[in-house]
């Protein structure tokens, strides 16, 4: 293997982030220090945290000698031994996330196969490049903190072994991701081929299921907090010794805690064999399927028959209806846009998972909270996400909008309809789910539904107006859709608007709580419908105001018309 080739290929991947950061293109000169800032920052924070932890340890053990005994009994080494598996889990999640992001941009993720680079070099570069960014920064942080801390507690050998194991675990995770990536491309290709005209919908459903399972798994792993995760991993890795991914952790445990050197060497050897096996499997798969292109998806084969269209009948012009239809296809066919549908689903599923099993024991406040989350959040989040992405999702194809006879009003109208349409669908689904699970009163259901509509209306226009002015049409290395600063402003503006719209309910909530605390005040509970009315007025005012701003921003966008 030519490591110079590998490093060159990795540099290409690293430099791809320049486009994301939107640096100036002409007379570009790279600042080497700034280019590697995440790793420097991770290193500095890691070293500082290690020193801080060491100082605290010194103080604590001086004050409480029992702590010293506890540390010497192996608590730290137990923690160390769980780190490789912890890093493996996180690296798997983040390298897979990286691949998911890249999957939408075929051109940027394709290595130049026509160069004199062997498959081993290409595979190694791809595995290492997947670690760039957060996974590598976290490995640097972890290794630097434990090495420095180990100097204070006299566990340098354990810390060095752990650091090596952590690096190996990260590589293992990335190699596994590489294998999954290649298999996924091949598998999806086979599915497209066999599903024929239904391929679009198979892909849509498949992607939704994949993302939901992925995110629920992610939240399941992380929601218990880092300590729980470490405890679970530490206990699980000995019970699951037959899984090769935990062999590194077992080896480390054998060396540093149980003192079973032979077992340690065996598991170290097995780990090395497994890592080499993963690498060669990835290389073989790349060799076999690396150049594989999924077959073209055929959507229709019949005689072309343009539809008169339902949208035209309900008052949309042909331009507006065409834009809406086009966007509908974009959101059901572009993988990176499908993730927008995942957010509300995950938002509703996570509290649902937490609430199920609590049954009738759930306190009234928690019940209200879950009900509010189920009814209000998903539709609003959908409106916010869609609104901020609706223009930026055009990507480099936005020239088609610029070059077509489209007025700003039509553009905003079609995009806003799309936002509200999908938000209402989400509301309908989550509303039915919430009603079935929580069985609220009819009055509470009506109020929650109307309030969700008000929020979606206002948040939709705010996000759309900010999404237009902050649109980012960059597509490589991944679609951006909105500038980070605009995204932040949007989040803030939506939050403030939501508070303003929900404000009329605060006296109602307060009066409800007061009547519970002081039964004598029960009679003065405020009417929620009054709050709903005031809330509706605020929402309408905000909607109209930001809709006008959206039109103004769209006029500027079309006038500027530069990609």
């Amino acid at each position, binding site marked *: 293997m030519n490591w110079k080739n590998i490093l060159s290929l990795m540099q290409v991947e690293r430099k791809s982030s320049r486009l994301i950061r939107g640096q100036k293109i*002409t007379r570009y000169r790279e600042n080497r220090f700034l280019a590697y800032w995440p790793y420097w920052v991770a290193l500095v924070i890691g070293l500082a945290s290690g020193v801080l932890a060491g100082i605290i340890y010194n103080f604590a053990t001086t004050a409480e000698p029992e702590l010293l005994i506890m540390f010497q009994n192996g608590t730290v080494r137990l923690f160390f031994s769980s780190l490789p598996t912890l890093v493996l889990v996180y690296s798997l999640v983040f390298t897979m996330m990286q691949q998911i992001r890249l999957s939408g941009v075929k051109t940027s993720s394709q290595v130049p196969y026509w160069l004199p680079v062997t498959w081993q070099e290409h595979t190694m570069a791809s595995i290492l490049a997947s670690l760039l960014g957060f996974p590598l920064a976290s490995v640097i942080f972890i290794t630097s903190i434990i090495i420095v801390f180990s100097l204070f507690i006299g566990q340098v050998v354990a810390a060095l072994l752990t650091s090596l194991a952590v690096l190996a675990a990260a590589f293992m995770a990335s190699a596994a991701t590489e294998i999954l990536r290649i298999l996924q491309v091949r598998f999806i290709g086979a599915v497209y081929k066999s599903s024929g005209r239904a391929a679009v919908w198979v892909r849509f459903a498949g992607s939704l299921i994949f993302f939901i399972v992925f995110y629920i798994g992610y939240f399941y792993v992380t929601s218990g907090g880092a300590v729980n995760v470490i405890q679970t991993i530490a206990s699980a890795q000995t019970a699951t010794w037959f899984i090769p991914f935990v062999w590194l952790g077992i080896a480390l445990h054998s060396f540093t805690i149980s003192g079973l050197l032979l077992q340690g060497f065996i598991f170290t050897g097995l780990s090395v064999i497994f890592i080499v096996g993963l690498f060669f499997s990835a290389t073989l798969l790349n060799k076999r399927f690396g150049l594989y292109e999924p*077959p*073209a*998806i*055929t*959507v*229709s*084969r*019949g005689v*072309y*028959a*343009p539809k*008169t269209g339902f949208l035209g009948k309900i008052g949309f012009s*042909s*331009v507006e*209806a*065409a*834009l809406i*239809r*086009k966007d509908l*296809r*974009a959101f059901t*066919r*572009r993988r990176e846009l499908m993730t927008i549908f995942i957010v509300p689903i995950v938002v509703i599923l996570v509290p649902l998972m937490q609430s199920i099993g609590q049954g009738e024991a759930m306190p009234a406040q928690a019940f209200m909270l879950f009900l509010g989350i189920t009814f209000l959040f998903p539709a609003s989040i959908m409106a916010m996400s869609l609104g901020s992405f609706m223009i930026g999702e055009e*990507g*480099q*194809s936005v*020239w*088609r909008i*610029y*070059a*077509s*006879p*489209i*007025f700003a009003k039509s553009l905003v109208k079609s995009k806003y309809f799309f936002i509200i349409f999908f938000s209402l669908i989400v509301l309908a689904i989550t509303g039915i789910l919430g009603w079935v699970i929580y069985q609220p009163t009819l009055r509470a259901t009506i109020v929650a539904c109307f309030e969700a509509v008000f929020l979606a209306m206002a948040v939709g226009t705010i996000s759309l107006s900010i999404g237009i002015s902050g649109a980012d049409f960059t597509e490589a290395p991944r679609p951006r859709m909105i500038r980070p600063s605009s995204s932040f402003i949007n989040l803030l503006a939506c939050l403030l608007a939501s508070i303003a719209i929900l404000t009329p309910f605060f006296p109602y909530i307060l009066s409800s709580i007061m009547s519970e605390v002081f039964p004598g005040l029960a009679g003065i509970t405020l009417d929620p419908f009054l709050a709903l009315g005031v809330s509706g007025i605020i929402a309408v005012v905000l909607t109209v105001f930001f809709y006008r701003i959206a039109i103004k921003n769209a006029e500027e966008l*079309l*006038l*500027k*018309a*530069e990609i």
Partner: protein
Amino acid sequence: MSEVFAVELKNVVKRYNEILAVDQVDLRIRKGEIFGLLGPNGSGKSTTLKMLIGLVQNDSGSVNVLGVEVKTDPVAVKQQVGYVPESPRLYEFLTGIEYLDFIGDVFGMQTEEKKTRITEYLKALQLEGREGDMITGYSDGMKQKITLISAFLHKPKLLILDEPLSALDPRSARIVKDFLHQLKTQGVTTIMSTHVLEIAQAVCDRIGIMYQGKILALGNMNELRDMAKLPDSGLEDIFLKLTGTDDIRAVVEELAK
């Protein structure tokens, strides 16, 4: 603006920060004319073409297209123009037919007319049978055909074509060239930019050569020959002489060392 001219540029300037892309350009293109805009890379051709459809705003001067000042009413201009950009990015998630259907709707075409024309164009450019595939699965040539069809579809009065024949197979390229001549007889104006000088020589009535943001030479082939003082030469020699890039032999000899 005169009834005679489809396009009229007066003293047009466009800067990209410190780079002067278009430098005080004056240009008039007659209705029904096929006009070729040539020039080395970075000479300002694409910027000039983009200004004609409002994709780039001129810093000063006036850009008048089909009697409309582009800055004042860009939508009215776009309604009458068919545009093929230098490197078109299509909606890759749509099928070919869906994309053309979208274009037809955006230009307000009637359903039957849209269907007839789309079917005709797909047949002429041999895309029949692949129109139901997603564009992401198309070759570059097929994507170019879809882009060309989308420019012709709504019967525009002015065609602005930036490298229109790139990636096309010989048959399709010939169809497009002949079709442009056919459209000329119907009064359609075509402005095209190309690096293939044989195409420009064969297709265009007049040619403008841009260099460093300025129109260096303008006229039909005979007028260009006179300007370059190369009476029996082809466009390639004229182009190289006028743009001062005729040091080919020296460069090749240097490279061969």
